[in-house]
């Protein structure tokens, strides 16, 4: 969504990110309702994760911004590849 908003709607990177985040509230909310109707939502786990995520987002963003972005990106990518392979092979 972000590149589309930058390219088509002439928005800046920050504005595009913020606007897409606003749209995601409703989009993720509706999808979550469809999953909930199927009984495929664990509200207790979700609430616990959300508490951590709300605390982590501002703290982590500040901390990570001071580190070598390239190195963090590589480490994150390697972790994702390993996790993805475990999901596929399990």
């Amino acid at each position, binding site marked *: 969504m972000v590149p589309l908003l930058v390219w088509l709607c002439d928005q800046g990177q920050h504005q595009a990110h913020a606007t897409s985040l*606003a*749209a995601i509230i409703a989009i993720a909310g509706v999808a979550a309702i469809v*999953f909930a109707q199927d009984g495929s939502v*664990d509200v207790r*786990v979700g609430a616990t994760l959300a508490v951590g995520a*709300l605390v982590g987002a501002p703290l982590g963003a500040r901390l990570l911004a001071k580190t070598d972005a390239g190195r963090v990106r590589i480490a994150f990518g390697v972790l994702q590849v390993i996790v*993805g392979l475990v999901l596929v092979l399990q």
Partner: protein
Amino acid sequence: MSAELIVITILAGVIVGAMSAFFGVGGGLLMVPFMVLALGETQHVAEGTSLLVIVPTAVAGVIAHNKRGFVDFRLAAWLVVGGVVGAVLGARLALGTAGPLLRTMFGVLVVVVGVRFVYQGLKARPSIDPG
């Protein structure tokens, strides 16, 4: 949930929040594997729960961005019109797909995103000056 599991889940949430804020990626890429592999949730429940978590975290992000005047709510509303249709179709498709197949497809997506991150990271690193 045991006390240990609650602490581990909150810590996982902290990491998810931090990584999502830093990289601008959806938290689902981290949350879904955590719930499947560490908590033993099914792929369907992990995806549904991850979508639920995205709502309050996105609200917090929008409040912060809105203070700096970055949110275009009218444009966001137009995105929602199309996005909601896609979200309902995507959710129904996911729920109609067998759990193991859905997990394999999600795993492939995670690998692809991971490879892209490694590539971008290597490209972003400054080249070593031989002097």
